[in-house]
C-alpha cells in the first residue's frame, strides 16, 4: 500500500507550511493537534478504501493550510461571529498587532511591509513547483501540484508574497502531466488486446 505514506508525507508538509505561518508560541501545539487528527483520518475505520482516506487527509491538510491565516486573527466584521452580548466581546483576548497570526516568525509589525513580504516566497508555491517536477516521473503527484498551485496563487494574490511564477510553473507542469498521463493511460488501455 503506497498511497498512505505518500498522502501522509504530503499532508505533513502542508501542515508544516501552515504552522510556519502561525506565531511561534502556538506552532508546536497546533502541529501536535493536527498531526494526531491526520492519523485519525488515515486510520478512520469508517472509510474502507485506503485511497479515499488518503484523499481526505490531503483535503484536511490543504484546508488547514488555506485557513491558517484566519486562525488567531480577530474576526473582521461580524461575519459568522456569535452575536454575543457586549461583555463577552470585552472579555475576549485580543492580540497586539505584533503577534497577529499571519506574521512570519521573527518579524515585527514594522517588518511587515509589502516590500518585505514580496521577498518571502510562498511555501505552497515551492510545494507546487517541486511536485510538478517530480510528477514528470511520478504522475499522480500532478494532482498535488495543481491543488497547491491554485492555493498558492490565491494566497499570493491576497498577501503579496513572492513565488507567483513558481506557483504558475507548478500548475502548468501539473496540468501537462495530468493531460498527457491520462491520454497515455487511455491509449494503452484502448490498444490492449486483452480488454
Amino acid at each position, binding site marked *: 500500500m503506497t498511497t498512505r505514506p505518500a498522502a501522509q508525507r504530503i499532508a505533513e508538509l502542508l501542515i508544516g507550511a501552515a504552522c510556519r505561518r502561525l506565531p511561534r508560541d502556538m506552532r508546536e501545539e497546533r502541529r*501536535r*493537534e493536527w498531526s*494526531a487528527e491526520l*492519523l485519525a483520518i488515515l486510520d*478512520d475505520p469508517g472509510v474502507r478504501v485506503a485511497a479515499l482516506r488518503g484523499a481526505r487527509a490531503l483535503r484536511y491538510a490543504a484546508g488547514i493550510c488555506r485557513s491558517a491565516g484566519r486562525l*488567531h486573527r480577530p*474576526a473582521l466584521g461580524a461575519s459568522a461571529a456569535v452575536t454575543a452580548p457586549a461583555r463577552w466581546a470585552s472579555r475576549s483576548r485580543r492580540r497586539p498587532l505584533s503577534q497577529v497570526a499571519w506574521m512570519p516568525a521573527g518579524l515585527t509589525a514594522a517588518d511587515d511591509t509589502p516590500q518585505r513580504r514580496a521577498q518571502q516566497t510562498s511555501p505552497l508555491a515551492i510545494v507546487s513547483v517541486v511536485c510538478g517536477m517530480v510528477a514528470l516521473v511520478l504522475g499522480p503527484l500532478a494532482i498535488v501540484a495543481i491543488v497547491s498551485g491554485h492555493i498558492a496563487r490565491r494566497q499570493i494574490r491576497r498577501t503579496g508574497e513572492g513565488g507567483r511564477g513558481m506557483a504558475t510553473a507548478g500548475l502548468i507542469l501539473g496540468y501537462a502531466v495530468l493531460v498527457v498521463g491520462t491520454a497515455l493511460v487511455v491509449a494503452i488501455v484502448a490498444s490492449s488486446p486483452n480488454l
Partner: protein
Amino acid sequence: MTGPLERVLRVFLADVSAPRYGYDLMKAARLPSGTLYPMLARLQDQGLVGAQWEQQREDASGRPPRKYYLLTGEGVRVARLELAQAAAARDSERRSPRRGAARPAPGVTR
C-alpha cells in the same frame, strides 16, 4: 448566525458533556477543516469553547494524544440561546415571509 456555526453548536449541544476532537467535529457537522478550526479558535477566544489534551493512555497503542473541544458552561448557555433565537427567526419568517427582517443565513439547513 451562519449555517456552519449553527451546525457546530448543534453537534456540541447533542451531548454537552462529550468532548470532541477536530476530525470528529468535521464529520459530525459536515464541515471542512478550513472552516472548522478558525471557528473553534474564535469560539475559544470568546470563552465559549474550552480545549483539553487527551490524557496519555496507559495501553500505549502508539496513537498520539488528541486535543478535545467542549462547550464551557457559558458556551452552553449562549449556544442554546442563539439556536433558539435562530429557530424563532426562521419560524416567524415562515409565517410572514414578506415582513421577515431576519433572513436565515445562506446555507442554513433546517
